């Protein structure tokens, strides 16, 4: 029996369509699993206590507290802190690599950065405990450096390779004719970068930032090791924090299945998922605007 070109065509279409739909189905099942299990938590816990409660203390005898706000605030504190460090540094490095770096320097730093992307998070956490935290404690005169700042610093390090690599690609993708036009008008390399190249690369740079942010938001091991794990509501960068991811990782294995505590951890996961999704949607909107508007 001979297979015609038409038949292979049809087969290929089916294979790719299945692959595409499969990823959608997997994504939706994860989200519905989180929602379904998370919803069960609200049979015993009031949603108001969960969404607006400041305290997280689910194992307390008699009076367990299931307030997610301290976890959300910890996560946002560490993530935004990381982005404050990593975004300017990452975009700056990417611009240097794409535009200014001499070939020899470029060939040196590019593989180092790519290598850095592959460092396991547990190793970063280890460095956080033994090196960065004592350094922070020393610099700011604290008893203990295991705090939100430590986490932000480490997450910045971890999201930097992603941001640099993707942003560099975006900057390189800007047609050189834009830059030439700018130079031909008498612009300096700095002005060209700032007013032409970076704006033209903006949608790709935003994607880089969002990927880096996703990395920081979802990172578990490093923050679990290096932020002190205090579930009290943090007052600032020098307080110990416990992020949503760390909480799930620490508590899920030690909680009896079927209890309110067990289910509420799924609800935390669903909220985290929702936050990532919102950030992605917003960034997609912004990126699209930049693509057509600037």
């Amino acid at each position, binding site marked *: 029996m001979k297979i015609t070109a038409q038949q292979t065509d049809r087969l290929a279409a089916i294979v790719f369509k299945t692959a595409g739909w499969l990823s959608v189905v997997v994504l939706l099942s994860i989200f519905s699993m989180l929602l379904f299990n998370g919803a069960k938590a609200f049979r015993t816990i009031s949603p108001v206590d969960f969404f607006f409660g400041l305290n997280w203390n689910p194992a307390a005898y008699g009076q367990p507290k299931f307030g997610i706000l301290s976890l959300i605030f910890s996560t946002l504190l560490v993530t935004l802190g990381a982005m404050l460090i990593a975004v300017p540094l990452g975009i700056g490095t990417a611009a240097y690599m794409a535009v200014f770096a*001499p*070939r020899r320097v470029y060939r040196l730093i590019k593989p180092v950065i790519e290598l850095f992307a592959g460092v396991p998070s547990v190793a970063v956490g280890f460095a956080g405990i033994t090196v960065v935290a004592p350094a922070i404690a020393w610099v700011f005169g604290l008893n203990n450096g295991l705090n939100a700042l430590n986490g932000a610093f480490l997450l910045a390090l971890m999201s930097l390779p992603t941001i640099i690599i993707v942003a560099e690609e975006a900057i390189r993708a800007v*047609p050189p*004719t*834009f830059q*030439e*036009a*700018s*130079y*031909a*008008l*008498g*612009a*300096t390399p700095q*002005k060209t970068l700032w*007013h*032409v190249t970076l*704006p*033209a690369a903006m949608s790709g740079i935003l994607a880089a930032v969002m990927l880096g942010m996703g990395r920081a938001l979802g990172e578990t091991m490093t923050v679990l090791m290096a932020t002190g794990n205090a579930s009290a509501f943090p007052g600032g960068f020098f307080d110990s924090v416990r992020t949503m991811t760390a909480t799930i990782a620490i508590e899920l294995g030690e909680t009896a299945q079927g209890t309110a505590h067990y289910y509420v951890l799924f609800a935390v996961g669903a909220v985290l998922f929702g936050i990532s999704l919102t950030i992605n949607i917003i960034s997609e909107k912004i990126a699209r605007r930049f693509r*057509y*508007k*600037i």
Partner: protein
Amino acid sequence: MKETTQSKLEIRNLHLHFGKKEILKGISLHVPDKAITALIGPSGCGKSTLLRSLNRLHDLNPDARLKGNILLDGKSILEKKKDVTDIRRRIGMVFQKPNPFPKTIFENVAYGLKINGLHHTERLRERVEHALRESFLWEEVHDQLDEPALELSGGQQQRLCIARAIAVEPEVLLMDEPCSALDPISTDKIEHLMLRLRERFCIVIVTHNMQQAQRVADFTAFMYLGNLIEHGTTAEIFENPQQELTKNYVSGNFG
């Protein structure tokens, strides 16, 4: 020739290497002010490369090495310590493919003014309008200045690029095959525009199109394999070329 004394640009024995390869092999040429000089020649003869030497765009390429000299109003523009941004402001350029920035129409024209330190809103608006009028584009775009420039047609985009270049009031305008990506009607508009701009600028145009050279250029220089073969008034080059090679090229025997 009599323009020698008042040439705007003077190229003296210019050699250019990319790495080990010699692209320009000792070019000498006088470019007069308030006239259009066309550079013609077959692909790869170095005419675009020569054009891009005139505003030092090869500085961006670490492999490029220039020898010889280029004088603007009698002063060298190739000295390393010379401010290259000032040279490029005085010698504007229009590229082969229209390349407006991904900004609004207004911002495209205002860009060169802003980077040169003009930020006064009212003055900017006047200068942008003036440049757009001079490029015969004002009537078409005056009510859509805040629209993205990339939504204009190809011919409009190229006229916008001309407006952008002349907004900073350069003395020389370099045009690298400005019509090669355009249809005949847009080409006609741009040629018309060039003839107007000739009254104020020294224009150097690279073109593949020999009819275009004959229509717009006062002087024509024929290049071949990195050498300048012959240079004269356009009539001389096309009707009475002195060199066999020039004669063959302008009569269409190769190219």
